[in-house]
Protein backbone atom coordinates (compact mmCIF):
# COMPACT_ATOMS: atom_id res chain seq x y z
CA UNK A 1 0.00 0.00 0.00
CA UNK A 2 3.05 2.27 0.35
CA UNK A 3 5.88 2.18 -2.15
CA UNK A 4 8.99 4.39 -2.16
CA UNK A 5 11.45 4.26 -5.06
CA UNK A 6 14.77 6.09 -4.86
CA UNK A 7 13.18 8.88 -2.86
CA UNK A 8 15.27 11.86 -1.78
CA UNK A 9 14.17 14.68 0.49
CA UNK A 10 15.48 18.02 1.70
CA UNK A 11 14.06 20.94 3.66
CA UNK A 12 14.14 24.04 1.51
CA UNK A 13 17.59 24.45 0.03
CA UNK A 14 19.28 22.44 2.79
CA UNK A 15 21.20 19.22 2.33
CA UNK A 16 19.43 16.04 1.33
CA UNK A 17 18.56 14.38 4.62
CA UNK A 18 17.04 11.30 2.99
CA UNK A 19 18.73 9.67 -0.01
CA UNK A 20 17.72 6.82 -2.27
CA UNK A 21 14.99 5.52 0.01
CA UNK A 22 13.24 2.44 -1.39
CA UNK A 23 10.81 0.18 0.45
CA UNK A 24 7.27 -1.11 0.40
CA UNK A 25 4.70 -1.54 3.15
CA UNK A 26 2.14 -4.24 2.57
CA UNK A 27 -1.38 -4.24 3.95
CA UNK A 28 -1.58 -5.73 7.44
CA UNK A 29 2.18 -5.68 8.05
CA UNK A 30 3.98 -4.32 11.13
CA UNK A 31 7.17 -2.26 10.88
CA UNK A 32 9.64 -0.53 13.11
CA UNK A 33 11.67 2.42 11.90
CA UNK A 34 14.79 2.87 14.00
CA UNK A 35 17.83 5.06 13.92
CA UNK A 36 19.55 7.66 16.05
CA UNK A 37 17.91 10.95 16.84
CA UNK A 38 18.19 13.31 13.86
CA UNK A 39 18.51 10.45 11.37
CA UNK A 40 15.35 11.50 9.58
CA UNK A 41 12.68 9.15 10.99
CA UNK A 42 10.15 11.94 11.45
CA UNK A 43 10.94 13.29 7.99
CA UNK A 44 10.34 9.90 6.41
CA UNK A 45 6.99 9.60 8.19
CA UNK A 46 6.06 13.10 6.94
CA UNK A 47 6.64 11.90 3.41
CA UNK A 48 4.33 8.95 4.04
CA UNK A 49 1.54 11.04 5.57
CA UNK A 50 1.86 13.54 2.76
CA UNK A 51 2.98 16.51 4.83
CA UNK A 52 6.17 16.90 2.82
CA UNK A 53 7.06 16.25 -0.78
CA UNK A 54 10.14 14.39 -1.99
CA UNK A 55 12.71 16.26 -4.06
CA UNK A 56 13.19 13.20 -6.23
CA UNK A 57 12.08 9.64 -6.60
CA UNK A 58 8.57 8.21 -6.73
CA UNK A 59 6.08 7.64 -3.93
CA UNK A 60 2.93 5.66 -4.43
CA UNK A 61 0.22 5.51 -1.77
CA UNK A 62 -2.68 3.08 -1.95
CA UNK A 63 -1.79 2.52 -5.58
CA UNK A 64 -1.75 6.23 -6.50
CA UNK A 65 1.39 7.96 -7.74
CA UNK A 66 1.63 11.01 -5.49
CA UNK A 67 3.41 13.16 -8.06
CA UNK A 68 0.49 12.93 -10.49
CA UNK A 69 -2.35 12.97 -7.95
CA UNK A 70 -4.19 16.31 -8.01
CA UNK A 71 -3.89 18.25 -4.75
CA UNK A 72 -7.59 18.10 -4.02
CA UNK A 73 -7.52 14.30 -4.01
CA UNK A 74 -4.83 14.13 -1.31
CA UNK A 75 -7.25 14.66 1.64
CA UNK A 76 -9.02 11.43 0.71
CA UNK A 77 -5.67 9.61 0.89
CA UNK A 78 -4.76 11.26 4.21
CA UNK A 79 -8.00 10.02 5.73
CA UNK A 80 -6.81 6.45 5.20
CA UNK A 81 -3.75 7.20 7.35
CA UNK A 82 -3.72 7.67 11.13
CA UNK A 83 -0.79 9.57 12.61
CA UNK A 84 0.46 9.78 16.19
CA UNK A 85 2.67 12.86 16.06
CA UNK A 86 5.89 13.01 18.03
CA UNK A 87 4.66 16.07 19.95
CA UNK A 88 1.03 14.79 19.97
CA UNK A 89 -0.26 18.00 18.39
CA UNK A 90 -3.53 17.98 20.27
CA UNK A 91 -5.62 21.14 19.94
CA UNK A 92 -5.48 22.79 23.35
CA UNK A 93 -8.83 24.55 23.19
CA UNK A 94 -10.76 21.36 22.42
CA UNK A 95 -11.77 18.70 24.94
CA UNK A 96 -10.41 15.15 24.82
CA UNK A 97 -13.64 14.03 23.16
CA UNK A 98 -13.47 16.76 20.51
CA UNK A 99 -9.79 16.15 19.80
CA UNK A 100 -10.44 12.47 19.23
CA UNK A 101 -13.55 13.10 17.11
CA UNK A 102 -11.76 15.56 14.86
CA UNK A 103 -10.97 13.12 12.02
CA UNK A 104 -14.61 12.01 11.93
CA UNK A 105 -15.84 15.60 11.92
CA UNK A 106 -13.46 16.51 9.14
CA UNK A 107 -15.01 13.70 7.09
CA UNK A 108 -18.34 15.44 7.49
CA UNK A 109 -19.90 12.97 9.94
CA UNK A 110 -22.36 14.29 12.51
CA UNK A 111 -21.71 13.92 16.22
CA UNK A 112 -24.65 11.56 16.71
CA UNK A 113 -22.97 9.23 14.27
CA UNK A 114 -19.64 8.85 16.04
CA UNK A 115 -20.34 9.81 19.68
CA UNK A 116 -20.79 6.26 21.02
CA UNK A 117 -17.80 4.96 19.08
CA UNK A 118 -15.50 7.72 20.33
CA UNK A 119 -16.61 7.15 23.90
CA UNK A 120 -16.00 3.44 23.59
CA UNK A 121 -12.55 4.02 22.11
CA UNK A 122 -11.65 6.44 24.89
CA UNK A 123 -12.65 3.99 27.60
CA UNK A 124 -10.63 1.33 25.78
CA UNK A 125 -7.51 3.48 26.16
CA UNK A 126 -8.44 4.18 29.80
CA UNK A 127 -9.72 7.73 29.36
CA UNK A 128 -13.43 7.05 29.68
CA UNK A 129 -13.69 9.48 32.59
CA UNK A 130 -11.70 12.31 30.97
CA UNK A 131 -13.96 13.03 27.99
CA UNK A 132 -14.40 16.71 28.80
CA UNK A 133 -10.88 17.42 30.05
CA UNK A 134 -8.68 19.85 28.13
CA UNK A 135 -5.25 18.53 27.02
CA UNK A 136 -3.47 20.99 29.33
CA UNK A 137 -4.81 19.12 32.36
CA UNK A 138 -3.58 15.70 31.18
CA UNK A 139 -0.37 13.89 32.03
CA UNK A 140 2.12 12.99 29.27
CA UNK A 141 0.88 9.41 29.15
CA UNK A 142 -2.76 10.52 28.95
CA UNK A 143 -2.00 12.94 26.11
CA UNK A 144 -0.19 10.13 24.34
CA UNK A 145 -3.29 7.94 24.54
CA UNK A 146 -5.55 10.77 23.33
CA UNK A 147 -3.21 11.20 20.35
CA UNK A 148 -3.35 7.47 19.65
CA UNK A 149 -7.14 7.41 19.96
CA UNK A 150 -7.37 10.30 17.47
CA UNK A 151 -5.06 8.42 15.09
CA UNK A 152 -7.20 5.28 15.07
CA UNK A 153 -10.73 6.70 15.43
CA UNK A 154 -11.38 6.71 11.69
CA UNK A 155 -10.14 3.11 11.32
CA UNK A 156 -7.15 3.93 9.12
CA UNK A 157 -5.60 1.33 6.86
CA UNK A 158 -2.17 2.64 7.77
CA UNK A 159 -1.12 3.79 11.25
CA UNK A 160 2.07 5.82 11.70
CA UNK A 161 3.41 6.51 15.19
CA UNK A 162 6.39 8.76 15.85
CA UNK A 163 8.23 7.82 19.07
CA UNK A 164 4.99 6.80 20.78
CA UNK A 165 6.81 5.53 23.85
CA UNK A 166 9.24 8.40 24.06
CA UNK A 167 7.50 10.30 26.84
CA UNK A 168 6.02 7.53 28.95
CA UNK A 169 7.28 5.06 31.53
CA UNK A 170 7.97 1.46 30.46
CA UNK A 171 4.71 0.20 31.96
CA UNK A 172 2.58 2.52 29.81
CA UNK A 173 4.97 2.03 26.89
CA UNK A 174 4.24 -1.69 27.04
CA UNK A 175 0.47 -1.08 27.08
CA UNK A 176 0.72 1.23 24.10
CA UNK A 177 2.67 -1.36 22.13
CA UNK A 178 0.08 -4.01 22.95
CA UNK A 179 -2.54 -1.61 21.60
CA UNK A 180 -0.68 -1.28 18.30
CA UNK A 181 -0.25 -5.05 18.05
CA UNK A 182 -3.97 -5.46 18.67
CA UNK A 183 -4.80 -2.98 15.89
CA UNK A 184 -2.38 -4.75 13.57
CA UNK A 185 -4.14 -8.03 14.22
CA UNK A 186 -7.37 -6.34 13.16
CA UNK A 187 -5.74 -5.60 9.80
CA UNK A 188 -4.13 -2.19 10.14
CA UNK A 189 -0.67 -1.75 8.64
CA UNK A 190 1.49 -0.22 11.40
CA UNK A 191 4.78 1.64 11.22
CA UNK A 192 6.40 2.86 14.43
CA UNK A 193 9.40 5.18 14.48
CA UNK A 194 11.45 4.71 17.63
CA UNK A 195 14.94 4.62 18.97
CA UNK A 196 13.75 2.71 22.01
CA UNK A 197 15.53 -0.66 21.72
CA UNK A 198 13.32 -2.27 24.36
CA UNK A 199 10.36 -2.04 22.01
CA UNK A 200 12.10 -4.07 19.35
CA UNK A 201 12.10 -7.18 21.45
CA UNK A 202 8.39 -6.94 22.18
CA UNK A 203 6.91 -6.64 18.74
CA UNK A 204 6.26 -9.00 15.89
CA UNK A 205 7.80 -6.62 13.37
CA UNK A 206 7.52 -7.86 9.83
CA UNK A 207 10.56 -5.70 9.11
CA UNK A 208 12.83 -3.49 11.10
CA UNK A 209 14.11 -0.55 9.06
CA UNK A 210 17.16 1.33 10.11
CA UNK A 211 17.85 4.92 9.09
CA UNK A 212 21.37 6.28 9.33
CA UNK A 213 23.11 9.03 7.42
CA UNK A 214 20.09 9.46 5.19
CA UNK A 215 20.06 5.85 4.01
CA UNK A 216 17.51 3.18 4.80
CA UNK A 217 18.61 -0.38 5.44
CA UNK A 218 16.76 -3.41 6.67
CA UNK A 219 18.19 -4.36 10.05
CA UNK A 220 20.23 -7.47 9.36
CA UNK A 221 19.79 -9.39 12.60
CA UNK A 222 16.03 -9.30 12.35
CA UNK A 223 16.00 -10.18 8.69
CA UNK A 224 18.00 -13.21 9.74
CA UNK A 225 15.42 -14.03 12.38
CA UNK A 226 12.59 -13.51 9.95
CA UNK A 227 14.26 -15.74 7.36
CA UNK A 228 14.90 -18.38 9.95
CA UNK A 229 11.22 -18.31 10.89
CA UNK A 230 10.12 -18.59 7.28
CA UNK A 231 12.41 -21.51 6.60
Amino acid at each position, binding site marked *: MVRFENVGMRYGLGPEILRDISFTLDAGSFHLLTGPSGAGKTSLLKLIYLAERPCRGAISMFGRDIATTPRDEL*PALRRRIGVVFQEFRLLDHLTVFDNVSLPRRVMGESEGHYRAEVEELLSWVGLGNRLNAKPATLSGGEKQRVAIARAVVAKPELLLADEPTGNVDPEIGGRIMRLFIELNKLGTCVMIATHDTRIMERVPASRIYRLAEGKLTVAKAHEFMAEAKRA
Partner: protein
Amino acid sequence: MSRSSGLMPAESASGATLHTIVAVMSFLACLALGFVLTLGRLASEWTEGLSGSVTVQLLPSAQISADDQVKEALRLVKNWPGVFSARALSRADAEKMLEPWLGQGNVLQDLPVPQLIEVTLQPGPVELEGLGRALSDGVPGAHLDDHQRWNAELAAFATSSEAVGWSVLLLITAATLAIVIFATQAGLQAHREIVEVVHMIGARDVFIANEFQRHFLWLGVRGGIIGLVLAAVTLVGSSFLMDSREAPVGAQYLPQFVSSPLHYTWLLLVPVMMGLIAMWTARFTVLRVLGRMP
Protein backbone atom coordinates in the same frame (compact mmCIF):
# COMPACT_ATOMS: atom_id res chain seq x y z
CA MET B 1 -18.00 21.42 21.51
CA SER B 2 -20.81 20.48 19.81
CA ARG B 3 -20.75 21.19 16.16
CA SER B 4 -22.06 24.67 16.38
CA SER B 5 -19.15 26.04 18.40
CA GLY B 6 -16.73 25.31 15.60
CA LEU B 7 -13.07 24.45 15.47
CA MET B 8 -11.87 27.83 16.62
CA PRO B 9 -11.22 28.81 20.21
CA ALA B 10 -14.08 30.94 21.50
CA GLU B 11 -11.83 33.59 22.94
CA SER B 12 -8.15 34.25 22.58
CA ALA B 13 -5.72 37.11 23.03
CA SER B 14 -5.52 37.70 19.30
CA GLY B 15 -9.31 37.68 19.12
CA ALA B 16 -9.51 40.40 21.77
CA THR B 17 -6.96 42.52 19.90
CA LEU B 18 -8.85 42.11 16.65
CA HIS B 19 -12.12 43.02 18.39
CA THR B 20 -10.59 46.23 19.72
CA ILE B 21 -9.02 47.20 16.41
CA VAL B 22 -12.20 46.54 14.45
CA ALA B 23 -14.25 48.44 17.04
CA VAL B 24 -11.97 51.51 16.86
CA MET B 25 -11.86 51.51 13.05
CA SER B 26 -15.60 51.08 12.80
CA PHE B 27 -16.09 53.93 15.31
CA LEU B 28 -13.96 56.22 13.12
CA ALA B 29 -15.66 55.05 9.95
CA CYS B 30 -19.12 55.68 11.47
CA LEU B 31 -18.13 59.19 12.57
CA ALA B 32 -16.70 60.02 9.15
CA LEU B 33 -19.76 58.59 7.46
CA GLY B 34 -22.09 60.53 9.77
CA PHE B 35 -20.13 63.69 9.03
CA VAL B 36 -20.24 63.19 5.27
CA LEU B 37 -23.94 62.32 5.23
CA THR B 38 -24.81 65.38 7.32
CA LEU B 39 -22.76 67.71 5.18
CA GLY B 40 -24.26 66.21 2.05
CA ARG B 41 -27.74 66.91 3.31
CA LEU B 42 -26.85 70.45 4.39
CA ALA B 43 -25.17 71.25 1.11
CA SER B 44 -28.25 70.25 -0.84
CA GLU B 45 -30.60 72.10 1.52
CA TRP B 46 -28.56 75.25 1.42
CA THR B 47 -28.13 75.01 -2.31
CA GLU B 48 -31.89 74.81 -2.73
CA GLY B 49 -32.29 77.77 -0.39
CA LEU B 50 -34.52 75.86 1.97
CA SER B 51 -33.04 77.33 5.08
CA GLY B 52 -36.51 77.77 6.51
CA SER B 53 -36.40 81.39 7.59
CA VAL B 54 -35.83 84.87 6.26
CA THR B 55 -35.67 88.26 7.96
CA VAL B 56 -37.30 91.56 7.14
CA GLN B 57 -35.33 94.65 8.15
CA LEU B 58 -37.22 97.86 8.76
CA LEU B 59 -35.07 100.98 8.62
CA PRO B 60 -36.52 104.13 10.16
CA SER B 61 -38.26 106.10 7.44
CA ALA B 62 -39.60 109.65 7.32
CA GLN B 63 -42.58 108.52 5.22
CA ILE B 64 -44.12 106.18 7.78
CA SER B 65 -44.29 105.81 11.53
CA ALA B 66 -42.42 102.92 13.11
CA ASP B 67 -45.61 101.22 14.33
CA ASP B 68 -47.37 101.46 10.94
CA GLN B 69 -44.21 100.21 9.26
CA VAL B 70 -44.24 97.03 11.41
CA LYS B 71 -48.00 96.53 10.98
CA GLU B 72 -47.83 96.95 7.19
CA ALA B 73 -44.87 94.66 6.80
CA LEU B 74 -46.39 91.93 9.01
CA ARG B 75 -49.65 92.05 7.09
CA LEU B 76 -47.87 91.75 3.76
CA VAL B 77 -45.60 88.94 4.88
CA LYS B 78 -48.22 86.89 6.68
CA ASN B 79 -50.45 86.83 3.59
CA TRP B 80 -47.64 85.76 1.29
CA PRO B 81 -48.07 82.16 0.06
CA GLY B 82 -45.64 79.75 1.74
CA VAL B 83 -45.08 81.83 4.86
CA PHE B 84 -45.65 79.84 8.02
CA SER B 85 -45.41 82.59 10.60
CA ALA B 86 -43.96 86.05 11.10
CA ARG B 87 -43.04 87.75 14.33
CA ALA B 88 -41.71 91.23 15.04
CA LEU B 89 -38.71 91.06 17.32
CA SER B 90 -39.10 93.22 20.39
CA ARG B 91 -36.42 95.63 21.43
CA ALA B 92 -35.45 93.21 24.21
CA ASP B 93 -34.96 90.43 21.63
CA ALA B 94 -32.75 92.68 19.58
CA GLU B 95 -30.71 93.68 22.62
CA LYS B 96 -30.26 90.04 23.55
CA MET B 97 -29.10 89.18 20.04
CA LEU B 98 -26.61 92.00 19.90
CA GLU B 99 -25.38 91.57 23.42
CA PRO B 100 -22.40 89.39 22.49
CA TRP B 101 -21.14 92.22 20.27
CA LEU B 102 -22.16 95.32 22.12
CA GLY B 103 -22.17 94.14 25.69
CA GLN B 104 -24.81 94.85 28.32
CA GLY B 105 -25.85 98.38 28.91
CA ASN B 106 -28.04 101.04 27.47
CA VAL B 107 -26.15 101.42 24.23
CA LEU B 108 -29.14 100.47 22.10
CA GLN B 109 -31.42 103.09 23.60
CA ASP B 110 -29.41 105.76 21.85
CA LEU B 111 -28.94 103.89 18.57
CA PRO B 112 -31.35 103.72 15.64
CA VAL B 113 -31.47 99.90 15.59
CA PRO B 114 -33.47 98.54 12.69
CA GLN B 115 -36.65 96.75 13.63
CA LEU B 116 -36.56 93.07 12.59
CA ILE B 117 -39.31 90.67 11.58
CA GLU B 118 -38.50 87.00 11.78
CA VAL B 119 -40.29 85.04 9.04
CA THR B 120 -40.59 81.27 9.21
CA LEU B 121 -41.29 79.57 5.90
CA GLN B 122 -43.20 76.43 5.17
CA PRO B 123 -41.16 73.65 3.59
CA GLY B 124 -41.12 73.77 -0.18
CA PRO B 125 -40.36 76.51 -2.65
CA VAL B 126 -41.43 80.06 -1.74
CA GLU B 127 -41.43 83.05 -4.09
CA LEU B 128 -38.93 85.08 -2.08
CA GLU B 129 -37.92 87.43 -4.88
CA GLY B 130 -41.54 88.57 -5.33
CA LEU B 131 -41.92 89.02 -1.58
CA GLY B 132 -38.78 91.17 -1.53
CA ARG B 133 -40.08 93.37 -4.32
CA ALA B 134 -43.52 93.64 -2.75
CA LEU B 135 -41.96 94.71 0.56
CA SER B 136 -39.67 97.37 -0.87
CA ASP B 137 -42.49 98.68 -3.04
CA GLY B 138 -45.23 98.56 -0.39
CA VAL B 139 -43.48 99.49 2.86
CA PRO B 140 -41.02 102.38 2.96
CA GLY B 141 -37.72 101.38 4.58
CA ALA B 142 -38.47 97.61 4.41
CA HIS B 143 -35.92 95.25 3.05
CA LEU B 144 -36.02 91.46 2.79
CA ASP B 145 -32.88 89.60 3.73
CA ASP B 146 -33.31 86.10 2.34
CA HIS B 147 -29.83 85.05 3.47
CA GLN B 148 -29.14 84.30 -0.17
CA ARG B 149 -25.51 85.33 -0.08
CA TRP B 150 -25.04 83.69 3.27
CA ASN B 151 -26.72 80.54 1.95
CA ALA B 152 -24.61 80.44 -1.16
CA GLU B 153 -21.44 80.73 0.88
CA LEU B 154 -22.61 78.08 3.32
CA ALA B 155 -23.54 75.79 0.47
CA ALA B 156 -20.11 76.21 -1.07
CA PHE B 157 -18.54 75.58 2.31
CA ALA B 158 -20.67 72.49 2.89
CA THR B 159 -19.90 71.15 -0.58
CA SER B 160 -16.17 71.52 -0.13
CA SER B 161 -16.38 70.09 3.41
CA GLU B 162 -18.32 67.20 1.99
CA ALA B 163 -15.54 66.57 -0.50
CA VAL B 164 -13.02 66.66 2.35
CA GLY B 165 -15.29 64.33 4.31
CA TRP B 166 -15.39 61.84 1.47
CA SER B 167 -11.61 61.87 1.23
CA VAL B 168 -11.39 61.29 4.98
CA LEU B 169 -13.89 58.46 4.68
CA LEU B 170 -11.89 56.98 1.82
CA LEU B 171 -8.67 57.19 3.83
CA ILE B 172 -10.34 55.61 6.86
CA THR B 173 -11.73 52.84 4.66
CA ALA B 174 -8.29 52.16 3.21
CA ALA B 175 -6.68 52.22 6.66
CA THR B 176 -9.45 49.99 8.01
CA LEU B 177 -8.92 47.50 5.22
CA ALA B 178 -5.19 47.42 5.84
CA ILE B 179 -5.47 47.19 9.62
CA VAL B 180 -8.26 44.62 9.69
CA ILE B 181 -6.44 42.51 7.11
CA PHE B 182 -3.25 42.78 9.14
CA ALA B 183 -5.00 41.94 12.42
CA THR B 184 -6.84 39.02 10.84
CA GLN B 185 -3.60 37.63 9.52
CA ALA B 186 -1.99 38.03 12.94
CA GLY B 187 -4.99 36.26 14.44
CA LEU B 188 -4.58 33.44 11.96
CA GLN B 189 -0.90 33.11 12.78
CA ALA B 190 -1.97 32.24 16.32
CA HIS B 191 -4.20 29.51 14.91
CA ARG B 192 -1.64 28.07 12.51
CA GLU B 193 -1.36 24.89 14.54
CA ILE B 194 -5.09 24.30 14.07
CA VAL B 195 -4.77 24.78 10.31
CA GLU B 196 -1.83 22.37 10.07
CA VAL B 197 -3.25 19.63 12.27
CA VAL B 198 -6.67 19.69 10.68
CA HIS B 199 -5.03 19.69 7.25
CA MET B 200 -2.92 16.64 8.06
CA ILE B 201 -5.91 14.82 9.48
CA GLY B 202 -7.41 14.96 6.01
CA ALA B 203 -9.60 18.07 6.00
CA ARG B 204 -10.26 19.68 2.65
CA ASP B 205 -9.12 23.27 2.17
CA VAL B 206 -12.68 24.57 1.88
CA PHE B 207 -13.66 22.87 5.14
CA ILE B 208 -10.87 24.67 6.98
CA ALA B 209 -11.50 27.96 5.15
CA ASN B 210 -15.22 27.79 6.04
CA GLU B 211 -14.49 27.23 9.73
CA PHE B 212 -12.11 30.20 9.79
CA GLN B 213 -14.23 32.55 7.76
CA ARG B 214 -17.27 31.93 9.93
CA HIS B 215 -15.22 32.66 13.05
CA PHE B 216 -13.75 35.86 11.61
CA LEU B 217 -17.05 37.05 10.14
CA TRP B 218 -18.63 37.14 13.61
CA LEU B 219 -15.48 38.56 15.15
CA GLY B 220 -15.60 41.43 12.64
CA VAL B 221 -19.33 42.00 13.02
CA ARG B 222 -19.11 42.04 16.83
CA GLY B 223 -16.21 44.51 16.77
CA GLY B 224 -18.07 46.60 14.18
CA ILE B 225 -21.22 46.75 16.29
CA ILE B 226 -19.24 47.88 19.34
CA GLY B 227 -17.75 50.71 17.22
CA LEU B 228 -21.15 51.60 15.77
CA VAL B 229 -22.75 51.82 19.21
CA LEU B 230 -19.92 54.04 20.48
CA ALA B 231 -20.22 56.26 17.40
CA ALA B 232 -24.01 56.48 17.75
CA VAL B 233 -23.63 57.50 21.39
CA THR B 234 -21.12 60.16 20.34
CA LEU B 235 -23.28 61.52 17.50
CA VAL B 236 -26.50 61.55 19.49
CA GLY B 237 -24.63 62.95 22.49
CA SER B 238 -23.23 65.82 20.44
CA SER B 239 -26.67 66.69 19.04
CA PHE B 240 -28.07 66.58 22.54
CA LEU B 241 -25.32 68.89 23.82
CA MET B 242 -26.04 71.35 21.03
CA ASP B 243 -29.73 71.41 21.89
CA SER B 244 -29.15 71.90 25.58
CA ARG B 245 -29.09 75.29 27.29
CA GLU B 246 -25.40 75.14 28.07
CA ALA B 247 -24.60 75.10 24.38
CA PRO B 248 -22.68 78.10 23.08
CA VAL B 249 -24.61 80.95 21.43
CA GLY B 250 -25.74 79.98 17.97
CA ALA B 251 -25.11 76.28 18.47
CA GLN B 252 -28.78 75.59 17.95
CA TYR B 253 -28.36 76.74 14.36
CA LEU B 254 -25.73 74.03 13.75
CA PRO B 255 -26.97 70.93 12.00
CA GLN B 256 -27.85 67.81 13.89
CA PHE B 257 -25.79 64.81 12.98
CA VAL B 258 -27.48 61.88 11.38
CA SER B 259 -31.09 62.78 11.22
CA SER B 260 -32.86 60.40 8.88
CA PRO B 261 -33.49 56.66 9.18
CA LEU B 262 -31.66 56.30 5.86
CA HIS B 263 -28.51 57.59 7.55
CA TYR B 264 -28.80 54.95 10.25
CA THR B 265 -29.11 52.32 7.55
CA TRP B 266 -25.85 53.51 6.04
CA LEU B 267 -24.18 53.38 9.44
CA LEU B 268 -25.47 49.82 9.95
CA LEU B 269 -23.51 48.86 6.86
CA VAL B 270 -20.25 49.58 8.70
CA PRO B 271 -20.27 46.48 10.98
CA VAL B 272 -21.44 44.38 8.04
CA MET B 273 -18.49 45.64 6.02
CA MET B 274 -16.12 44.94 8.93
CA GLY B 275 -17.40 41.37 9.16
CA LEU B 276 -17.06 40.85 5.42
CA ILE B 277 -13.54 42.28 5.31
CA ALA B 278 -12.41 40.03 8.20
CA MET B 279 -14.17 37.05 6.63
CA TRP B 280 -12.67 37.46 3.18
CA THR B 281 -9.22 38.14 4.58
CA ALA B 282 -9.43 35.01 6.72
CA ARG B 283 -10.60 32.90 3.81
CA PHE B 284 -7.98 34.28 1.45
CA THR B 285 -5.16 33.94 3.99
CA VAL B 286 -6.09 30.40 5.06
CA LEU B 287 -6.37 29.24 1.47
CA ARG B 288 -3.00 30.81 0.69
CA VAL B 289 -1.34 29.18 3.74
CA LEU B 290 -2.93 25.84 2.82
CA GLY B 291 -1.85 26.25 -0.79
CA ARG B 292 1.76 26.21 0.32
CA MET B 293 1.24 22.87 2.07
CA PRO B 294 1.44 19.72 -0.03
